[in-house]
């Protein structure tokens, strides 16, 4: 069995989540929008899940819109809010997920001005620049992630919310990596929109949510059909929605235990990494997710290390699990001012519930022997 250390790319499905989903994979459970009995049972299940997800992230059930995942949620937030406005200015953090950056960039076609917000060497917002940007433009929307998928760096979103609202703009928060790993409270963060994805918290792939305050006017991305109050057409993926609900419920109940476990493992891992000469851990000075370490061993061929680790049964990644840009150094690290050659060799370890101390020790041993071979 390979040791899976890539939980920020995706997690396995919790067996309890699968169990909850199974009845909805055995038909005929109907189309949640149909009025007959099968349809009603499906609809009740969908509404229960809405409550479960709402509880995890501190919002109202009615604020949740189901989507096909975090990517769609980010697109819906950015395009859906701006669609009803006269073109203005959108700002996003320089280390955002491509779904945010590219959705924002696409607005340029319709006359919007789109600017990244600089980050410091630890990956945190560069506050003076951000404040200057808010003063210089009439900003309508700001998109910031709660936690970064590569470095795990946590942004002070609540602080940003105060500034964003004072400037008269809406704040969208990509909480895809944060939910289930650290407490997430839509209200307390001061977010107006927030993206979530189930497969990052032991739920199924292909289901996500956008949380939206009622005051925010939103235009649909998928037209057609009454689902999600007209904001997101398409027959509901009932089994996946139910799975998301249960995964959220479990994440809420087990958050403390999970966090303690992950933090202990990560400390063990970082202690081991620090014994390697020249190792550099990205965002080490910032508050980070308890499960994530991104590092590089300058002087070693990072890509070769990744391939060798894979052959030895350790599933890690260089950064984000994207379909494109393979071979391009991480935009996250570049934004933090990491030199290209170091960024190119970055390795991200993202831990999960089932990882053990033995996994960490095995990984460190493999890394050390590979580093020694290559030196």
């Amino acid at each position, binding site marked *: 069995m390979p040791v899976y250390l890539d939980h920020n790319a995706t997690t396995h499905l919790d067996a309890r989540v699968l169990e909850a989903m199974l009845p909805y994979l055995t038909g005929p459970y109907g189309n949640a929008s149909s009025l007959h009995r099968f349809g009603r049972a499906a609809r009740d299940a969908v509404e229960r899940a809405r409550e479960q997800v709402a509880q995890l992230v501190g919002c109202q059930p009615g604020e949740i819109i189901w989507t096909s995942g975090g990517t769609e949620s980010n697109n819906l937030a950015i395009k859906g809010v701006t669609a009803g406005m006269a073109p203005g200015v959108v700002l996003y953090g320089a280390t955002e997920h491509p779904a945010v950056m590219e959705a924002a960039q696409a607005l340029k076609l319709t006359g919007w001005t789109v600017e990244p917000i600089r980050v410091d060497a630890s990956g945190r917002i560069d506050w003076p620049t951000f404040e200057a940007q808010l003063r210089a433009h009439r900003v309508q929307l700001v998109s910031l992630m709660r936690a970064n998928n590569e470095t795990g760096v946590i942004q002070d979103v609540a602080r940003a919310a105060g500034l964003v609202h004072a400037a008269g703009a809406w704040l969208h928060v990509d909480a895809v990596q944060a939910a289930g790993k650290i407490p997430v409270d839509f209200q307390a963060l001061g977010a107006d929109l927030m993206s979530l994805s189930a497969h990052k918290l032991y739920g199924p792939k*292909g289901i996500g949510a956008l949380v939206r305050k009622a005051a925010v006017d939103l235009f649909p991305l998928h037209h057609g059909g009454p689902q999600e109050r007209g904001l997101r057409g398409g027959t509901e993926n009932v089994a996946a929605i139910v799975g998301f609900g249960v995964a959220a419920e479990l994440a809420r109940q087990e958050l403390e235990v999970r966090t303690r476990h992950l933090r202990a493992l990560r400390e063990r891992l970082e202690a081991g990494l620090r014994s390697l000469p020249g190792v550099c851990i990205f965002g080490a000075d910032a508050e980070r997710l308890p499960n994530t370490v991104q590092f590089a061993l300058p002087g070693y061929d990072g890509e070769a290390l990744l391939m060798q680790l894979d052959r030895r049964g350790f599933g890690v990644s260089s950064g984000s699990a994207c379909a494109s840009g393979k071979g391009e150094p991480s935009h996250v690290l570049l934004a933090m001012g990491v030199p290209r050659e170091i960024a190119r060799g970055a390795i991200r370890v993202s831990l999960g519930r089932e990882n053990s101390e033995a996994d960490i020790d095995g990984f460190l041993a493999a890394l050390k022997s590979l580093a020694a071979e290559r030196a």
Partner: protein
Amino acid sequence: MIYLDHAATTPLDPQVREAMLPWLDDAVGYGNPASDHALGRRAWAAVEHARAQVAALVGAMPAEIIWTSGATESNNLAIKGALEFRGHAGAHLVTSRIEHKSVVDTCRHLEARGVRVTWLVPEANGTIGVEQVLAAVRPETVLVSLMWVNNETGAINPIHELAPHLRERGVLLHVDAVQAAGKLPIDLDTTPIDLLSLSAHKLHGPKGIGALFVRKRPRARLAPQIHGGGHEQGMRSGTLATHQIVGMGCACALAAQRLATDAPHLAALREQLWQRLRVLPGVYRNGDPAHSAPHILNLSFEGVEGESLRARLGDLAISSGSACSSATREPSYVLRALGRDDELAGASLRFSVGRTTTSEDIDRAAARVLAEVGALRALSPRWGT
């Protein structure tokens, strides 16, 4: 409960479920298909196998299949993507009044943004004619979007005859084939359709997964609607849901295998139901059986009110045209176009049979309909006086 609503959704086939389960498994079924390590590559291989299965059902090449979250998204991507790629200014689009809401609302949205839209109205048999479409095409027409099979009446549009004419004129053709796939043979190798939408849950596959066929030669070009990450050749980003995709692949493979037996079986059940119900006075068949997909029978009942009929048939899972019955429907444009007045359009029932429907189901359902239509007519001061 007798389930006769297969045009709304179908039960998951047990074989499809079996194929999906390993990809939901706690131990081995994870890995992001976009991750470059052993587990990721395993998931990627499963996704590509499924792509080939979907392509085979419709005679396409695997690289022409783009995964989406369902046909609603496929229809949105096809229509908005094609128009956005071309530029909205001065563009013209042809579609019909009987399309699924996901096409109608998308075209309305574009209309509000300045795209000219021609809305075709069905002929007396419920279909859109080739001549009608060609007469609507202008030099600035970018796209014709037409469904293959209508989801309310089962009416089949003459896509085979239409497609070559549009290719000749250099107009893109998008076909919503959600109700056609697995019911009629589709061969994109010989039929010059440029874009074609599919949904798994109408074919005994899972809900929340669909596909858009995007022709490579000549290449149909689309502007992506969901950005970020560059999945699916940049046309549709987002982490791929391996289990869903595997389920759709398996469902399409089964549909391809079973097409030759499923279609006549469904048509026989549908005719059995019609024979049982036509003994009633004042029952009308909506649509022309000569141009109809095998799984749908749509009937209007004179002398009863639609909502009451549906309410008394709570033990049948069927769809009804009654206006107040369903928050999701406007009084049926399709049925009114077939010459039914509002009252008959409202007092309509759509029965749609599936692979697991039995002849006994049909007899029981027919008996229930006969009984309840009779009861409501007996109660009505307007019937028979």
